[in-house]
């Protein structure tokens, strides 16, 4: 059992949890993820690490409540426990001194981009962070990201905070300003990462995307998370989760994310009826 040492509401349906997980924190690095299972009947879900404290042996995750499993997870109070937490899984982010790096995070993806921004900065990079949310009440970790970035740009879809529009609108403007950008790193919904990738491909800027494929094992043995990268089949869990965005077949990723849409909806509706939510 893994104790939830801190729980915080970050926005509508958006939850932060800090979990005591000593076997994760010994080697965890930015870009890696954990897999957790809420209870005996639970599914294994991957969540990218949003922060960690190796001394206190705690990892932080941020998730959005969208279906049965994330609602169940969100229903566990601070001080409560999660049945299984395993990790750190996946290949860590490749981080060195690249020069100027733009980090683009969208929605819940803002959380896992934080440790990457932080490490990029500590390696001496000039880091420009672009973060985007649906609306003002969804904004979280603005200060936290700002503190480790050289520049922070923020967008909301409805214009209630920061610039009106998408992170890609800001990215396009930034690229038009003709500053030299050495690398772009993006985490967020697949459709957003695809849009970022399409823009940077034209400018030939190396771009890394952290893919959110469906997973079961997380250790390279089942192939649930397989994707086509540059024409080859790769496993998101062990070869990734970060890949060269320009080689990713995002349409396939989005189709594969939707494979269990009906089943997920059915399970969620059934649970809501039974739990009277």
């Amino acid at each position, binding site marked *: 059992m893994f104790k939830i040492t801190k729980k915080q509401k970050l926005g509508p349906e958006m939850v932060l949890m800090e979990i005591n997980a000593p076997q994760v924190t010994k080697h965890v690095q930015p870009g890696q993820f954990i897999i957790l299972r809420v209870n005996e009947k639970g599914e*294994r879900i991957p969540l990218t690490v949003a922060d960690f404290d190796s001394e206190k042996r705690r990892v932080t995750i941020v998730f959005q409540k969208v279906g049965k499993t994330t609602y169940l997870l969100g229903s566990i109070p601070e001080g409560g426990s999660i049945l299984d937490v395993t990790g750190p899984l996946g290949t860590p982010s490749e981080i060195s001194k690249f020069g100027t790096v733009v980090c683009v995070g969208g929605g819940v993806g803002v959380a896992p981009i934080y440790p990457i921004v932080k490490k990029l900065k500590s390696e001496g990079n000039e880091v420009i962070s672009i973060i985007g949310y649906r609306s003002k009440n969804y904004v979280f970790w603005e200060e936290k990201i700002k503190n480790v970035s050289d520049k922070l740009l923020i967008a909301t879809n409805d214009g209630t905070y920061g610039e009106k529009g998408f992170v890609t609108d800001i990215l396009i403007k930034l690229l038009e300003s003709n500053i030299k950008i050495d690398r772009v790193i993006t985490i967020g919904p697949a459709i957003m990462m695809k849009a970022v990738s399409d823009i940077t491909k034209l400018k030939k800027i190396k771009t890394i995307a952290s893919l959110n494929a469906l997973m079961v094992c997380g250790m390279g043995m089942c*192939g649930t998370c397989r994707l086509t990268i540059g024409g080859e089949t790769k496993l998101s869990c062990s070869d990734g989760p970060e890949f060269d965005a320009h080689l990713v077949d995002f349409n396939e990723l989005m189709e594969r994310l939707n494979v269990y849409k009906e*089943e997920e909806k059915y399970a969620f509706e059934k649970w809501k009826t039974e739990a009277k939510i």
Partner: protein
Amino acid sequence: MSIIKEQIPMKEQLPQERKKNFYEVPLGYTKEEAILEATRCLQCPTHPCIDGCPVHIDIPGFIKAIKEDNLSLSIEIMHDTNLLPAITGRVCPQEEQCQVVCVMGKVGDPVAIGKLERYIADWELENRSRGNINIPKKKESKNKKIAIVGSGPAGLTCAVNLIKMGYEVTIFEGFHELGGVLTYGIPEFRLPKKIVKEEIEFLNKLGVKFNLDFPIGRSETISDLFKDGYSAVFIGTGAGAPQFMHIPGENLGGIYSANEYLTRVNLMKAYKFPDYDTPIKVGKRVAVIGGGNVAMDSARTALRLGAEHVFLIYRRSRTEMPAREEEIIHAEEEGIEFMLLTNPIRYIGNENGLVKQVECIKMKLGEEDASGRRRPIPIESSEFLIDIKQAIVAIGTTPNPIISKTTQDLKTGRHGEILVNENGQTSVKGAFAGGDIVTGAATVITAMGAGGLAASSINRYLSGELK
């Protein structure tokens, strides 16, 4: 006394019944049936069966004790060399190991060694459930810690042998449950999970410690284990990564590797969705690609999940199928539709990215290849389409790369398998390996044999006999 030439058959669930449930297919011997079968053993002095067994069980010995109805002696003899007989009695390919060389086979059927092994093991489990546990004696504590990486058949065997020798043994498992392939891979109807759990509980009673949710190579590395005070490490992580055919459309929704399909069903209990949260696609028409035991397991699982037609697509003929004869017969009896000398060439999806058809080509057999089997050759213009809702690719696995990627100086072969010498020693001092991670996908008993060998090598290494 006249010799009974035929094996005493073991009662089985009828095909029409069993294909709708996940309960075990063979039902076990009664006492009378077991004694009768045991009398068929000639107790021949040459006992070729012992040499045929990868762990050298004293087969005539345990069978003689069954004949004399001395079951506690029988299980004691069994436990000398094999501490997991309820598992091996069910999944070992006895027909090509101990039974193929049985002298009785020359005049009739060989003795049903596997069925007798299961009988005695099940008797002991019954007994244990009544609280009568016969814990084998351990030698004096050696005050040395050994780490076992992976809790499949190789790791479990290595662990049990070492703890009996007096070592402190800790098993590290990446998943949330123990057992490796015995838990995630082999279906309930062939190996009930209750049995795996009881055998593991037995190890627990012996004092083996378990660390779950602990993937070595990620949570800690092999060198961390040595730093943590482990004197030796055994790597038994299995042949983890699924192989695909790399044909168009293979990443469409509804196409599974056998590992994914079986893990969802066996480990995650997707057959109980939505009571359990892990979903699985249930299609009326399912294609399974491959001809091994895993393909048979996948096909028969699909049937139990509610498929009306399960097509087993295999590129060679029935003779070349690597699956156990018993499994092939079980699959045939249950109505699996074999499409032999057939190979998929591409999958076609619908507008939602879900598979709707597989295109296949007919094959013929050519010359023998390196494996000694006749090579399948496509027949020109013989392509045809099959409507399917699901496909399960069961064409083998390759060794899981996580440990080798994260362990400096660990030598691996062409396919990523860990290289070991005749004692199971790897290129890293104090690190041993065995099972599928070394051999590529093989059988449970071969892995157990390798785990046993590594245990005695570790003992020799730690007593200074082996450098």
